[in-house]
C-alpha cells in the first residue's frame, strides 16, 4: 500500500519536475538568506557573512542534483541529457545526419514497401471463416474459358457438368463451391428499376448457390445466395457487394428487395455481402454482383454454362476435418479422367495425362498471386540488395564519424569521462538516428507501396490491396533500423571510447599512410559491386521492355479506337445479332472521317481469347488447339493484319454461303507440311464434325493476348455471320483518317442510337490497349531503374564519404607534398586514382555476379538470356561517371590545400 503511494509520489515528482525544482530552489535560497541575515546580525561583515553561509550550505547545484537522485529519476535525467547532447551533436553535422537518415529511410523503406505488397498479394488469406480449411481444386491460373485437352493434362478450370459430378461424388467436402473464372472480362449491364440513371457496366460474377455458405459468410443486410437460387427456372436474384452498396447506392437499405435491370432482365437484389469481402480472388475488378450459376443462360446468354465440355469454373471447397488430401486428389483426378473419356476431343494419351492438383484455397484462386509471384520475389531480392548497400553505407558513415571524433573522445577520456558513459552517449546518438531513420522509412514505405500499386495497376481504384504498412511491416522496419543503429554504431563507439587519452595530446592525427581503413574501402568496393549488379539488371529490364514494345506485332494501331459492347447483356438473341452487326457497320461508317469499321469477338492485345481443339478433315488427329475469332469483312484492315495467301473474310461470306475460315501462319505451320498449300483444305473445330471450315486464306501471325505469342500460336478467323463456337462480337475497331479527340462520346452516342441498352463497356485507343499489356514489364523496368538509381546514389555517397574522409586525414601530408613541389593536377590524380581503384574492384566483383544473376531472372526477360553488351557498357559507364563525381569534389578540395595552413593544422 505504502509502496504504491510512494511510486505515485515519484511519478508526480517526474511530471511536475519543473515545479519541484523551483520549489526546492526557493526553499534553499530562503535558507541561505536567513543564514546570511543571522551572520550579519551577529556582526559579521556582509561580504563575509554571505561566504560563510555558502560555506556551510555547500554547492547548491550539486545539492539540487542530489535531490533529483532522491526522487529516483536520475537515470531518466541522464538519458535525456544524453539525448539532448546527441541531438546537438547531430545538429552540428547536418550533412552526416541527413545522409544517414535518408540512407536508412530509402533502404528500409524500399524493403517495407515490397513486404507490404508481398504480404497483401502473396500471403493474404480471404476474409472468410477459417480460410485454412479451404482447398482449391486446381493449381493453375488459367485466364480464359476453354474446352478440349490441355497440353500437360493439368486441369484447373472445369465445366458446370464436371463440377456437379464432383460435388455429388465427394462426401469428403463439407461444401464444394464453383465460381466463374476470368470474370474480369464479363461485365453485366445494370440499371436500377425506376432510377433515371443510364445502364452501366458492372462486374457480375456467376457463383454456385453454396458459395457464401462455403466461405462461412453472413450478409450485412438481407440474405446471401442459397441452393434454391441456383436452379434453372428459379427467380432471378443477385447479391450486391458491400463496396458497391456503400459506394454506388450510399448504403441504402431499400436496395435489398428492389428490382434491377441486369442485361435487360429483372433481377431482385436479395442481400449485401459482408464488408471487406472482395470475392474469391484478388483482382483489380472485384465483383459488384454475385449471381447464381444456373441463371447465366438467362442473364448473360452465355452458352458455357450448359456446354458439358466448356471449362469456365474455378472450384473451391471446404474439406471435412481429418480428410487426407492426397487420396482425395487421386479420387478427383480419376473422376476427371472418366468424364473426359466420354469427350470426342480427347485421345487416349490425353486421358492418360489428365489430372488435377489440390492446393490451399485460403487465398482464393490466386491468379494475381501467380502473375506477380516471380516479379515480387525478384523485387524482394533487389530490395534486400539495396538494404545491404544502405547498411554498408551507414557502417561507413558511422566509421568515418567515429574516426573523426577520436580526438574528441580522447580529450573526454583524458578529462575523466568513463568509458561506459562515452559508449552510452554514442549509442544514444546512433539509436536516435536509427529511430528517426526508421520513422522516415515508414513514410517512404507507404509512398513506395502506393507507387508500386500505381505501377502495377495503372488507373485502377478498386484493387483490394492497401498500401498501408501492416503491424508486421512496422515492426520489421523499426527492428531493422534499430539493429542497424546498434550494430553499426557499436563498433565505432567502442573504437572511439578505447582511444587512449595520450593520442589527443600527442597530436596523433598527422599521418601519411592513414586515410580510410581497409574495412571502409572494402565496404565501398562492396557497394560498387552491388550497384553494378542492380544497374545491369535495370539496363536489361528496360532493354527487355524495349524489345517487347518494338516487336513487330503485325498490326497497325495508329488512329484506331476500340469500343467494347456486350450484345447478350443488351438482350440480343442469336437470330437478332446479324442485324445488329449490320447496324453497327452502317452507323459507325456514317461517322465522318471513319475509314474502316471492324467487328469481332476479340481484338489483338486485348488479353482474352477462345480456344478450341482442331483437326484437319481426313487426317489423323494431331490434338492441336487454336484460337477462334469471328470477324467482319473490314476487320483485318482495321487492325492492320495483312492477308498473305488467298483472301480475307468478305461481305459475300454470309449465313447461307459455304462455311469458311481464314487461318494465320502459325496455324499453317502447326497442321501442314512445309510448302503445302493450305487453301481449300477443311478442318473441324471443337470436335463438331457437322460444320467443317474450308480454309480460304492465310493472314500474318498477329500478336493476340501477348506479344510472346508472336509466331507461335495457331488461330482461325470465321465470318461473323456464319455459325461458330464463339459467342457474340464484343469489339468494334474504328479506324479514322486522323485522330478524333471526342471519339469516345461519338461512339457512345452512336451505340445509344442503335439501342439504349447497348452500353459502351469500355473505350480505349488501340495504342492504350496495347500499352495495357505491358504494365507488368513496364512496372519491372521502372522499378529496376528506380532501385538501380537508388543503389547508384547510395554507392556514390559512400565513395564520396570515404574519399573526402581520406582527404581530410591527409591534409597535412598533401600540404607537405605541395610544399615540396607537387602540382595540383598531381594531387587530384592521386585522390581520384584511389577512388577509381575501389570502383574498378567493385566492377571486377560485380560483373561476374551480374552474369550469374541474369541466369536466375532469364524467364522474366524477353529474348535476352545473358548480359548484353549494351547493358554492361551502360552500367559500367554510369558507375564510373558516378565514381568520378564522388571523387573529383574531394580531390579538388585536396588540391586547393594551402601548404602553409595545412602544416599548421593539427
Amino acid at each position: 500500500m505504502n509502496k504504491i503511494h510512494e511510486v505515485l509520489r515519484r511519478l508526480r515528482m517526474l511530471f511536475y519536475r519543473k515545479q519541484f525544482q523551483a520549489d526546492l530552489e526557493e526553499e534553499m535560497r530562503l535558507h541561505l538568506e536567513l543564514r546570511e541575515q543571522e551572520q550579519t546580525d551577529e556582526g559579521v561583515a556582509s561580504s563575509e557573512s554571505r561566504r560563510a553561509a555558502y560555506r556551510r550550505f555547500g554547492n547548491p547545484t550539486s545539492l539540487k542534483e542530489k535531490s533529483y537522485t532522491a526522487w529516483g529519476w536520475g537515470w531518466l535525467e541522464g538519458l535525456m541529457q544524453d539525448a539532448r547532447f546527441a541531438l546537438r551533436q547531430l545538429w552540428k553535422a547536418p550533412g552526416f545526419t541527413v545522409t544517414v537518415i535518408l540512407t536508412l529511410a530509402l533502404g528500409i523503406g524500399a524493403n517495407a514497401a515490397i513486404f507490404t505488397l508481398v504480404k497483401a498479394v502473396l500471403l493474404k488469406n480471404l476474409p472468410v471463416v477459417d480460410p485454412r480449411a479451404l482447398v482449391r481444386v486446381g493449381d493453375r491460373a488459367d485466364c480464359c474459358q476453354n474446352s478440349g485437352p490441355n497440353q500437360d493434362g493439368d486441369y484447373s478450370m472445369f465445366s458446370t457438368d464436371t463440377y456437379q459430378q464432383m460435388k455429388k461424388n465427394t462426401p469428403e467436402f463439407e461444401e464444394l463451391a464453383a465460381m466463374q473464372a476470368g470474370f474480369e472480362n464479363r461485365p453485366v449491364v445494370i440499371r436500377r428499376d425506376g432510377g433515371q440513371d443510364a445502364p452501366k457496366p458492372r462486374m457480375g460474377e456467376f457463383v454456385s448457390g453454396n458459395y457464401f455458405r462455403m466461405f462461412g459468410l453472413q450478409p450485412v443486410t438481407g440474405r446471401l445466395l442459397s441452393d434454391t437460387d441456383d436452379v434453372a427456372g428459379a427467380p432471378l436474384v443477385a447479391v450486391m457487394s458491400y463496396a458497391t452498396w456503400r459506394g454506388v447506392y450510399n448504403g441504402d437499405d431499400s436496395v435489398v428487395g428492389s428490382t434491377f435491370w441486369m442485361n435487360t432482365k429483372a433481377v431482385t437484389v436479395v442481400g449485401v455481402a459482408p464488408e471487406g469481402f472482395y470475392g474469391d480472388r484478388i483482382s483489380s475488378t472485384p465483383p459488384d454482383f454475385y449471381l447464381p450459376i444456373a441463371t447465366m443462360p438467362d442473364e448473360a446468354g452465355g452458352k458455357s454454362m450448359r456446354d458439358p465440355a466448356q471449362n469456365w469454373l474455378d472450384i473451391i471447397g471446404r474439406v471435412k476435418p481429418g480428410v487426407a488430401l492426397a487420396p482425395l486428389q487421386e479420387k478427383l483426378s480419376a473422376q476427371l479422367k472418366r468424364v473426359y473419356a466420354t469427350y470426342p476431343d480427347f485421345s487416349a494419351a490425353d486421358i492418360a495425362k489428365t489430372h488435377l492438383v489440390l492446393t490451399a484455397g485460403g487465398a482464393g484462386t490466386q491468379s494475381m498471386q501467380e502473375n506477380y509471384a516471380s516479379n515480387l520475389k525478384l523485387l524482394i531480392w533487389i530490395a534486400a540488395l539495396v538494404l545491404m548497400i544502405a547498411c554498408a553505407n551507414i557502417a561507413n558513415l558511422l566509421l568515418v564519424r567515429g574516426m573523426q571524433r577520436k580526438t574528441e573522445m580522447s580529450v573526454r577520456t583524458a578529462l575523466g569521462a568513463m568509458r561506459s558513459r562515452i559508449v552510452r552517449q554514442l549509442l544514444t546518438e546512433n539509436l536516435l538516428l536509427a529511430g528517426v531513420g526508421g520513422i522516415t522509412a515508414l513514410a517512404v514505405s507507404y509512398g513506395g507501396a502506393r507507387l508500386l500499386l500505381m505501377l502495377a495497376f495503372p488507373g485502377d481504384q478498386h484493387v483490394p490491396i492497401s498500401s498501408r504498412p501492416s503491424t508486421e511491416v512496422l515492426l520489421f522496419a523499426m527492428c531493422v533500423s534499430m539493429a542497424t543503429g546498434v550494430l553499426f554504431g557499436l563498433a565505432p563507439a567502442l573504437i572511439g571510447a578505447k582511444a587512449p587519452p595520450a593520442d589527443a595530446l600527442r597530436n596523433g592525427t598527422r599521418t601519411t599512410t592513414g586515410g580510410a581503413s581497409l574495412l571502409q574501402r572494402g565496404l565501398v568496393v562492396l557497394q560498387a559491386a552491388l550497384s553494378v549488379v542492380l544497374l545491369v539488371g535495370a539496363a536489361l529490364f528496360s532493354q527487355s521492355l524495349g524489345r517487347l514494345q518494338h516487336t513487330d506485332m503485325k498490326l497497325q494501331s495508329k488512329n484506331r479506337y476500340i469500343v467494347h459492347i456486350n450484345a447478350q447483356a443488351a438482350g440480343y438473341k442469336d437470330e437478332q445479332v446479324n442485324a445488329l452487326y449490320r447496324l453497327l457497320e452502317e452507323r459507325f461508317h456514317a461517322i465522318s472521317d471513319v475509314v474502316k469499321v471492324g467487328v469481332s469477338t476479340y481484338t489483338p492485345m486485348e488479353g482474352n481469347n477462345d480456344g478450341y481443339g482442331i483437326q484437319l478433315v481426313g487426317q489423323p488427329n494431331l490434338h492441336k488447339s487454336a484460337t477462334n475469332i469471328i470477324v467482319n469483312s473490314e476487320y483485318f484492315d482495321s487492325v492492320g493484319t495483312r492477308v498473305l495467301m488467298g483472301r480475307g473474310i468478305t461481305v459475300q461470306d454470309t449465313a447461307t454461303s459455304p462455311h469458311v475460315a481464314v487461318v494465320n501462319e502459325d496455324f499453317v505451320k502447326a497442321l501442314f507440311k512445309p510448302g503445302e498449300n493450305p487453301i481449300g483444305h477443311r478442318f473441324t473445330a471443337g470436335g463438331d464434325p457437322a460444320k467443317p471450315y474450308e480454309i480460304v486464306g492465310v493472314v500474318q501471325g498477329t500478336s493476340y493476348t501477348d506479344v510472346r505469342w508472336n509466331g507461335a500460336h495457331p488461330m482461325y478467323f470465321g465470318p461473323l455471320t456464319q455459325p461458330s463456337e464463339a459467342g457474340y462480337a464484343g469489339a468494334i475497331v474504328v479506324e479514322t483518317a486522323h485522330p478524333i479527340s471526342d471519339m469516345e462520346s461519338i461512339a457512345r452516342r452512336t451505340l445509344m442510337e442503335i439501342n439504349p441498352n447497348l452500353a459502351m463497356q469500355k473505350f480505349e485507343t488501340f495504342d492504350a490497349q496495347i500499352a495495357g499489356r505491358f504494365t507488368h514489364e513496364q512496372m519491372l523496368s521502372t522499378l529496376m531503374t528506380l532501385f538501380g538509381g537508388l543503389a547508384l546514389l547510395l554507392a556514390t555517397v559512400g565513395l564520396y564519404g570515404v574519399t573526402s574522409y581520406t582527404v581530410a586525414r591527409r591534409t597535412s601530408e598533401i600540404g607537405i607534398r605541395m610544399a615540396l613541389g607537387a602540382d595540383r593536377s598531381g594531387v587530384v590524380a592521386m585522390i581520384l586514382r584511389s577512388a577509381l581503384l575501389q570502383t574498378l574492384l567493385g566492377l571486377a566483383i560485380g560483373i561476374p555476379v551480374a552474369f550469374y544473376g541474369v541466369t536466375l531472372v532469364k524467364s522474366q526477360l524477353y529474348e535476352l538470356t545473358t548480359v548484353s553488351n549494351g547493358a554492361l557498357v551502360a552500367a559500367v559507364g554510369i558507375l564510373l561517371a558516378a565514381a568520378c563525381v564522388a571523387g573529383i569534389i574531394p580531390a579538388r578540395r585536396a588540391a586547393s590545400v594551402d601548404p602553409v595552413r595545412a602544416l599548421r593544422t593539427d
Partner: protein
Amino acid sequence: MNRDEIPPGTLYLLILKTLARHGELHGYEIANSIQRTSDEVLQVEEGSLYPALQRMLIKGWVTAEWGTTAGNRRARYYRLTAVGSRQLALEISQFERVMGAIGRVIQAA
C-alpha cells in the same frame, strides 16, 4: 565552539523528532532547532538536509506546504504524517537498541 557532525543514520530520526515536537517548521528552522536543542553540539550539514527532506516526502513521512514566515517570507513548512509518527517510534527504538548495545560494549571491563 566545537560542534559535532550528526552520527550517520540519525538525521531522519532527528528531523522526525524535531517535527514531532514543534508541529510544522521550514528547513532553516529544522536545522536551527536541532542545533539549539542539542546545546549547539549537533550541527546539521545543511547540504544533506534538503535531499533528506525530499526522500522523506517521497516516503510519505512528512508533508510540505507553503506558508509565510513571521518576516512575511514564503517558506515551505514540513509536518509529520501518521506514517512519519510510526517511523519516528521505530527509529527511536532502533536507536535505543543500538545505543544500549554500544553502552554495554563500552562499560564491559
